[in-house]
């Protein structure tokens, strides 16, 4: 059964269809690995073996009764795990926070509903930075996730549990969310493939809100091919999300086998400056050389305002967060302080106890930039700069089909290396944040190893709704290279 843990989703689907393995057996393989490896990695923060196996049994039944229906749902019976930001009915959904440490969700997020509807089996819920605010998973109330490539290093964040779980082969795939790089940066740091779709492609319904104009869910898996299959099941219009886009359904696998000849890759001058570590640069340069070998050409493009993306983000995202997180008041759900004198004290004490330091910092920054007298100087100013950043991409895409660069300026860093200095931590997302501000799709795929044999991620940024093309560009590279098949030594 050992080859099952490294199989692609298509291989698992074929094995299930051929009855070489049942969904129950498959779920058990992964649950056993979780039992063995999770105490070290801390990727899973909610598990329920009986519930998982019951879901697997239902998937087996579905495949047995109706082979035709499962042909339309190739994912039926394949296990996956959800970032704990996705409300999952009957599962504790904590968002990595003490605030929701006892919250058992009464409903499913749209993404969960869709993937469960496709027959996928939920292995459990995955650790994350508290309320998705962090780039190292060190802000989780449930303790940090360890990077399977080196347990003294961070897995990235905020979808660090998702990244570590897929990298350690504790699950074939996972869901993630990306507000400023939270799918791509951990994918890069853990050596996997992750995609943040164009804003509005995946429904935000039931995805606990951080910064609503930036948040987007997406797949994290071993390969672009796996991500394409997952995105097919995750994407689509949802009337319950007011910013969900009404577009015809797409088959994101349609271009996977398209050759790369003629592809124009834009390389932003600003992404190849001093900020990137030498080991990351070497791996990215080698990947670009491989792309040229495969028939692509590269052209330098300019994103002159991209240097402003991190400061603009740290106005806009905290502003939206301060508004979104006002719902946690200790009244309808979430933590309530045991002692208080009046209603205001109940609110402020419940929030002081329920939120961790980084979440409080961002709420306070957001409250300040939205407060009377500062709104124009900070919030409106940042929104104007956001437009400049988005306009840069419109210009750049006149010269190229996709943009490439590093996902993260460095490989995974050690625990504690940046946690004392919020601004240094914020700069971990320097290459990923501008795509969120513009609403563009972005992905990360493994392209080699840097210092201390830690994975390096190549970032692909696509034009609006360019997911199928990006996935094809990534898939062609993965057919020619094997970085995405590498597995950490310690979890074999």
């Amino acid at each position: 059964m050992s080859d099952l843990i490294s199989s692609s989703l298509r291989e698992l689907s074929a094995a299930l269809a051929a009855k070489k393995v049942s969904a129950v057996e498959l779920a058990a393989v992964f649950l056993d690995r979780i039992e063995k490896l999770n105490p070290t990695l801390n990727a899973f923060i909610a598990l329920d073996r009986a519930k998982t196996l019951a879901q697997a049994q239902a998937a087996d039944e579905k495949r047995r009764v109706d082979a035709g229906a499962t042909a339309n749902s190739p994912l039926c019976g394949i296990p996956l795990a959800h970032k704990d930001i996705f409300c999952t009915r009957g599962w504790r959904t904590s968002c990595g926070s003490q605030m929701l440490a006892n919250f058992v969700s009464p409903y499913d997020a749209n993404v969960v509903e869709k993937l469960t509807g496709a027959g996928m089996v939920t292995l459990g819920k995955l650790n994350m930075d508290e309320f998705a605010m962090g780039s190292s998973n060190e802000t989780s109330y449930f303790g940090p996730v360890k990077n399977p490539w080196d347990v003294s290093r961070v897995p990235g964040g905020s979808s660090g549990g998702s990244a570590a779980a897929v990298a350690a082969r504790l699950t074939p795939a996972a869901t993630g969310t990306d507000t400023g790089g939270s799918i791509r940066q951990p994918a890069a740091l853990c050596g996997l493939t992750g995609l943040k779709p164009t804003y509005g492609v995946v429904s935000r319904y039931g995805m606990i809100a951080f910064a609503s104009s930036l948040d987007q869910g997406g797949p994290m898996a071993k390969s672009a091919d796996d991500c394409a299959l997952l995105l097919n099941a995750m994407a689509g219009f949802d009337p319950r999300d007011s910013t969900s886009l009404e577009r015809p359904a797409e088959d994101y696998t349609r271009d996977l086998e398209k050759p790369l000849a003629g592809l124009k890759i834009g390389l932003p001058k600003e992404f190849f400056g001093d900020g990137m570590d030498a080991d990351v640069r070497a791996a990215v340069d080698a990947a670009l050389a491989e792309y040229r070998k495969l028939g692509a050409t590269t052209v330098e493009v300019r994103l002159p305002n991209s240097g402003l993306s991190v400061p603009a983000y740290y106005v806009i995202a905290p502003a939206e967060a301060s508004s979104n997180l006002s719902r946690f008041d200790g009244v309808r759900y979430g933590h309530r302080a045991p002692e208080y004198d009046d209603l205001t004290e109940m609110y402020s004490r419940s929030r002081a106890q329920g939120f961790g330091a980084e979440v409080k910092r961002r709420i306070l920054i957001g409250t300040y930039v939205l407060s009377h007298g500062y709104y124009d100087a900070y919030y409106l100013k940042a929104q104007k700069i956001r437009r400049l950043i988005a306009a840069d991409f419109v210009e750049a895409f006149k010269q190229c089909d996709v943009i490439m660069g590093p996902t993260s300026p460095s490989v995974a860093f050690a625990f504690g290396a940046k946690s004392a200095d919020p601004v240094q931590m914020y700069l971990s997302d320097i290459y990923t944040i501008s795509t969120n501000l513009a609403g563009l799709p972005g992905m990360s795929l493994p392209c080699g190893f840097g210092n201390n044999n830690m994975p390096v991620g190549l970032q692909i940024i696509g034009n609006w709704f360019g997911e199928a093309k990006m996935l094809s560009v990534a898939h062609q590279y993965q057919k020619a290279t094997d970085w995405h098949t590498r597995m950490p030594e310690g979890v074999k």
Partner: protein
Amino acid sequence: MSLNLEDVARIARLARIELSAAERETTRDQLNDILGFIEQLQAVDTTGIEPMAHAVDVVQRLRPDVVTETNRRADFQAVAPETEAGLYLVPRVVE
């Protein structure tokens, strides 16, 4: 400009987050670091630039004014800290 302890207390009150005296000091320093970092936005000329509130241009959809949700009050109140007879309980606000 940088925030002083009174500013921090005011912001914390607006955000309904209780801060101890010691926390106020650390918070002041950290918020000032972050505000110092975002200060660079002020140097950018944004004359005539329309603020971008959202990643995509969407207009608010309207739906017919009909009931679409089923009543699941018991389920939703099961996760509340304190309820009684279908109501959420909070400290007395009217004497």
